[in-house]
């Protein structure tokens, strides 16, 4: 025992292990540089968010009133409003949810509960991963070529909603798969042991348990779809619409398109309208995101598992 303590533990120090004063100073300097770098990065990230919100509020809040929410677009900025855009956005989102949620959850059920590891499954997985990273404007070209031209649906609400549905599908599939995957295997086995069929097990046990996580994904998908502009413009949504969409085949505009239209005009009055529109858009997006985060937080606390 004594000999062990007395024996020099490190006989020869490697050169890098010797903390000479100069080396120490250099280490200290690196640490300071790292702290400065992190501070600048966080400052730019948070500062941008703050500056953006403040800038938009200063420009837009004075313009935001009941008349703005309930008027159709106009040549005169002071008389213009976002009614047609709001109507279009709401219609788009409703149809998008109706189309994309069943398909997305269905695909997730197949991949998690039914699929075996084979070439087809691999192909589906690679496709989903790649579609999630495909630029949204490419979906616009797809919508233009497929729904507008090939299926002859014209530049209508339904074409726009189908385009957005394909766009958000990967988000929903990925979120639903993660939540289904997190349902413990024992639940399924218990259900099978009681004589339930596969579908009964999925319907009565797996899906209810996977519901909160899936809902989080759906909300994030909706928040993404509300803000999307490029695919809708590309598939041919109008920028000047002075009526509410009244059918699936009706021409339409959407809130971000209306904002884009106003930003691209030179008059300051329209820029204020754009800012007011942005305040509405951000409000909706933030509320949806906050709700999704809240759900996820509750889910984490309940299950104790880190999600997403």
């Amino acid at each position, binding site marked *: 025992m004594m000999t062990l303590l007395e024996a020099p533990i490190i006989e020869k120090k490697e050169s890098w292990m010797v903390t000479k004063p100069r080396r120490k100073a250099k280490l200290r300097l690196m640490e300071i540089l790292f702290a400065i770098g992190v501070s600048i990065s966080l400052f730019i*990230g948070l500062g941008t968010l703050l500056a*953006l919100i403040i*800038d938009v509020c200063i420009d837009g809040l004075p313009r935001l009133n009941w008349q703005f929410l309930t008027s159709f677009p106009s040549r005169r900025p002071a008389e213009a409003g976002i009614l047609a855009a709001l109507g279009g956005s709401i219609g788009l989102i409703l149809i998008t949810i109706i189309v994309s949620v069943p398909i997305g959850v*269905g*695909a997730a059920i197949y991949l998690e509960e039914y699929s075996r590891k084979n070439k087809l499954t691999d192909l*589906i997985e690679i496709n989903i991963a790649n579609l999630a*990273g495909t*630029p949204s*404007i490419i979906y616009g070209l797809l919508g233009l070529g497929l729904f507008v031209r090939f299926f002859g649906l014209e530049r209508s609400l339904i074409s726009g909603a189908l385009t957005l549905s394909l766009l958000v599908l990967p988000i929903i599939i990925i979120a639903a798969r993660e939540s289904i995957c997190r349902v413990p295997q024992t639940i399924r086995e218990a259900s099978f042991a009681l004589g339930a069929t596969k579908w009964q097990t999925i319907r009565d046990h797996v899906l209810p348990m996977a519901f909160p996580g899936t809902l989080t994904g759906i909300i994030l998908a909706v928040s993404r779809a509300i803000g999307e*502009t490029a695919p809708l413009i590309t598939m041919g949504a109008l920028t000047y619409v002075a009526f509410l969409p009244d059918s699936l085949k009706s021409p339409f505009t959407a809130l971000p398109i209306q904002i884009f239209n106003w930003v691209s005009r030179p008059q300051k009055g329209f820029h204020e309208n754009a800012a007011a529109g942005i305040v509405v858009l951000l409000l909706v997006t933030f509320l949806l995101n906050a709700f999704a985060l809240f759900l996820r937080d509750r889910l984490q606390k309940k299950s104790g598992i880190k999600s997403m």
Partner: protein
Amino acid sequence: MKNKEAFLKYLFLACALVSILTTGGIIYVLLFETIAFFKEVSIIEFLTDKEWTPLFVNKHFGIAPLVCGTVLTSVIALAVALPMGLLVAVYLSEYAPAQIRRVLKPVFEILAGIPTVVYGYFALLFVTPLLQKFIPSLQGFNALGPGIVLGVMILPLVSSLSEDALYSVPTSLKAAGYALGATKLQVCFSVVVPTAFPGIIAAFILAMSRAIGETMLLAIAAGQMPNLTLNPLEAVETMTAYIVQISLGDTPHGTIEYRTIFAVGTVLFLMTLVLNTISYRIRERFIRI
């Protein structure tokens, strides 16, 4: 009963197959119009001509100016997002106390969730005028302002994906570093970051793909003048902004102008496809998902 079970299985399979059909649809639509485009314009001209003027009387179909605009804005964005994203990721995964993480993570998610048309407004009417105070020669439409804003926009993507990569580094490796007497910073940058390097590169590549595909921000703030330049102070037009520009006009179906957007879209799709695939392969190989 048996029939219903089998039916449902195939129904779910059909849902999953929608993803393959979507990819197939994209490729079909892009190829169909692009082939028609290349019947009228030679590939050589498309790739080598230095002018892009499909709307003028004297038509030129060289994609170089559009690619140049896309690359220029993306490089500016990556110059902002990569170092900052990595620093934030190291800070969040190794240094930040739990309370700060709890605040910062949602804030970054909000930053990532803001619609890009909003960033366009911000770049055009806030960042560019601000930069003009320091750089008087900066044009109203330019690559620099929106490039920087694009960088901040993809910052959350870089930091959260890099953070995932940093997290996957085994604690035993870090412990070994500390046991050798290394400081925390040394462990971070000589053990954790190098070990997580493939994952970080995958994050960087995905960020690049996102920057290349970004549309509204650049259509609003970078300009709509195809410009073969590397000067960030001038107006440029990206591939995505060109597609938006044509889509806003009433270009009749079947004309050469109409087909240009599909040809440009094909180039864009190929670029992002290659980047996404590389990133996917790296993650698949080096990180257990």
